[in-house]
């Protein structure tokens, strides 16, 4: 591709990208973790098998799905339960689920399964071990599950409109990995090539969960309908993903992992910059892009939300797609630097949803140019956390101005600027967001307002001479250690800080969740309040037995029904 480069195009600036409204409008792209996993498993020729399916006619039992890679195997151990309707809740306060799961590092023995059966069904109240890489659970979509089971039991296929309206048979809620509840630390697997990109174990667990759920619904239909029952048609099964309900717990993650979050954003921004830098677009690239624009329209048509904020955004996005089609009819993709021109146009013409969708779409024809960025999304810097105490105060001050310049002039004593406080509940040890001036939560506030803290530190630095080492300031002001660390990180990681107020009265917390879920590869974001939402994962993906290099890449974009 080197002959096709024009002059370098700079990455978009953090001031442009790191606003919550934009982060909260991001879409999956080639670098999303699900996409990376699927491509790798296909290109490395992973083999999948259902090693056990010991589920009784009552729907209770366990199953084991093995994913065998070139060097190692990973197994989903699934437990199916008989859950009374009144106990079903996606909230973290739930204590029982329709199905529970662990991803085992290798192939589990009968003893392993016996051990897991005494722990995995209890989720947070159980313990797993270093042999496990994730712990998760799922609940049925009550709307769809019963319809599908009864239809199949009668020998009929379920109603397509109902399938499209929900999009999944089960919803996962928390998918815990990286050492949670006793699982292996990420550092134990980080050096494996197949685990080098973030959240690959968790994504694999969800992917195998989807296969289990399809098998379970067929099993339940057979149990109910006997010989009359039919299996779920492959095209319908294929369109179904796995749902996920995500609450506030995910929000703090991107603030608490500034280097990691930077690496995700930086990889995507670098990918966008590389494509913008292309001097021309080949006929093939144009065809791929136009095909995916059409397929995105189909996906957007199936995107439903009851939340007024998201409804308005989806309406804007549909309008954006219409504008994009007009633009593509008029604009010549054979002109010079067409992708740069198209994205420049979008910044004026489209809503944030549309701009970010387009930014993801232009990457699609260019896997050879951008896919090598995926491993850079991990955080491999063991010293990223260290404070350089020798940094002169003047330099630190400049870093504060660069990252938090927007926040320094705000009146942080004004109630509306700090209306909210993040805290952890004693009840379920989950992050929550409260009203600082209405609830007794301030003593428990967790540090999720870096901008406010930076403004305070900046004030306290005022009288310190520029050439004093920051270590001296920290001896006097240990309370600013948090801010000094983040500021030094921002020098190496320009996209590490959100450039908006995360405790403002105006905060829409779902924005924090959405950007992380977009990097996972989720679609069909459906906020259910301002602080939890549902999504779909692996919708339209090939099932394990059908995964091949031909279908491992662009599955996320649905194709029109024949």
């Amino acid at each position, binding site marked *: 591709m080197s002959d096709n480069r024009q002059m370098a195009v700079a990455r978009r600036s953090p001031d442009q990208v790191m606003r919550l409204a934009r982060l909260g409008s991001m879409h999956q792209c080639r670098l999303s973790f699900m996409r990376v996993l699927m491509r790798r498993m296909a290109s490395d020729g992973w083999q999948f098998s259902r090693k056990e399916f010991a589920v009784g006619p009552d729907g209770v039992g366990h199953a084991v799905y093995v994913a065998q890679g070139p060097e190692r195997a990973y197994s989903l151990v699934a437990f199916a339960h008989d859950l009374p*309707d009144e106990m079903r*809740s*996606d*909230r*973290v*306060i739930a204590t029982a689920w329709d199905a529970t799961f662990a991803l085992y590092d290798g192939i589990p023995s009968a003893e392993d399964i016996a051990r897991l059966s*005494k*722990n995995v069904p*209890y989720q947070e*109240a*159980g*313990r797993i*071990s*270093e042999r496990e890489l994730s712990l998760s659970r799922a*609940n049925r979509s*009550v709307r769809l599950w019963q319809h599908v089971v009864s239809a199949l039991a009668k020998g009929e296929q379920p109603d397509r409109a109902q399938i499209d309206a929900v999009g999944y048979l089960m919803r996962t809620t928390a998918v815990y990995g990286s*050492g*949670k509840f*006793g*699982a*292996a*630390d990420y*550092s*134990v697997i980080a050096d494996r090539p197949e685990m080098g990109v973030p959240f690959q174990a968790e994504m694999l667990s969800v992917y195998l969960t989807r296969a289990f759920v399809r098998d379970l619904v067929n099993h339940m239909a057979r149990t109910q309908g006997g010989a009359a029952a039919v299996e779920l048609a492959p095209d319908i099964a294929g369109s179904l993903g796995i749902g996920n*309900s995500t*609450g*506030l717990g995910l929000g703090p993650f991107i603030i608490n992992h500034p280097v990691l979050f930077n690496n995700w954003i930086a990889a995507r921004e670098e990918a966008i910059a590389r494509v913008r830098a292309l001097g021309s677009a080949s006929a093939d690239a144009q065809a791929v892009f136009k095909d995916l624009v059409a397929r995105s329209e189909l996906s957007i048509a199936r995107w439903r939300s009851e939340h007024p904020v998201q409804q308005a955004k989806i309406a804007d996005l549909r309008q954006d797609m219409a504008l994009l089609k007009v633009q593509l009819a008029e604009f010549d993709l054979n002109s010079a630097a067409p992708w740069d021109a198209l994205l420049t146009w979008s910044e004026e013409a489209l809503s944030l949803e549309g701009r970010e969708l387009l930014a993801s779409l232009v990457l699609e024809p260019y896997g050879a140019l951008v896919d090598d960025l995926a491993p850079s999304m991990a955080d491999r810097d063991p010293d990223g956390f*260290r*404070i*350089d*105490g*020798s940094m002169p105060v003047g330099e630190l001050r400049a870093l504060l101005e660069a990252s938090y310049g927007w926040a320094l002039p705000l009146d942080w004593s004004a109630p509306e600027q700090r209306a909210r406080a993040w*805290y*952890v*509940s*004693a*009840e379920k040890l989950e992050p*929550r*967001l*409260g*009203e600082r001036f209405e*609830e*007794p*939560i301030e003593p*428990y506030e967790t*540090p999720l307002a870096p901008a406010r803290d930076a403004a305070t530190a900046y004030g306290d630095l005022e009288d310190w001479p520029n050439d004093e080492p920051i*270590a001296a300031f*920290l*001896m006097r002001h*240990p*309370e*600013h*250690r*948090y801010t*000094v*660390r983040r500021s030094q990180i921002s020098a190496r990681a320009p996209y590490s800080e959100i450039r908006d107020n995360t405790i403002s009265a105006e905060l829409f917390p779902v924005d924090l969740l959405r950007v992380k879920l977009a990097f996972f590869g989720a679609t069909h974001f459906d906020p*259910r*309040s*301002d602080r*939890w939402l549902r999504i779909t994962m692996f919708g339209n993906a090939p099932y394990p037995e059908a995964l091949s290099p031909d279908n491992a890449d662009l599955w996320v974009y649905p194709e029109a029904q024949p």
Partner: protein
Amino acid sequence: MKNAVMNNAVMSYALIEVEAMAKKAARGAGQSWGMAEEAAKAASWLCAQNLDGVAALACALGSDAGQGDALAAAVAISDTAGAWPPEGMRLEVAFVPALLLPFAAYAARQVAQPVTLSWQGGSAVTDGHRLCLEDLQPQDLLHSLGQVAIRIGGTLGEPQEHRTRAEPDAADWQQLADLAQRTYAPASEESRLKGAGAGLNDND
């Protein structure tokens, strides 16, 4: 909580669990969040070196006298690395010597040379990644060893075994858990409904 299954066995924790617990415990003991992060990384680093980081932090946070000093003195070692006088640094008293080791390791990485800590009758050398104890038992490192000298240089002997899990003493873990508890807001119905954002039906 249903932890019955493993009640009688020694609990094995992921290092990230040690880190998370240590951070909340240090915060619960009154440290700033930034210092609590240091305490957390230090406890986890010690466990990775097959030393009892949970006990070390429990000792540091448990003694009213010198608690803040123990952590502040340790943090200062890495904050000032590169600016030490040629003869090195000297601390008049190290309340919990184990806590100094992770910060000496950070200093070693920063100056790209080994760092040696010496007490009466024993020493520890680290190159930033590995740690070697000379004439010291791990248990010695939990209690004051008096004056300690810290200097750049030294030769690494047989390093500590590297671990990916921690099996802390249950009483030490509980001490950290009790401190961590202070950071949690008490449950209330208001919080349950508003704070976690229940909205539309989640069982459909």
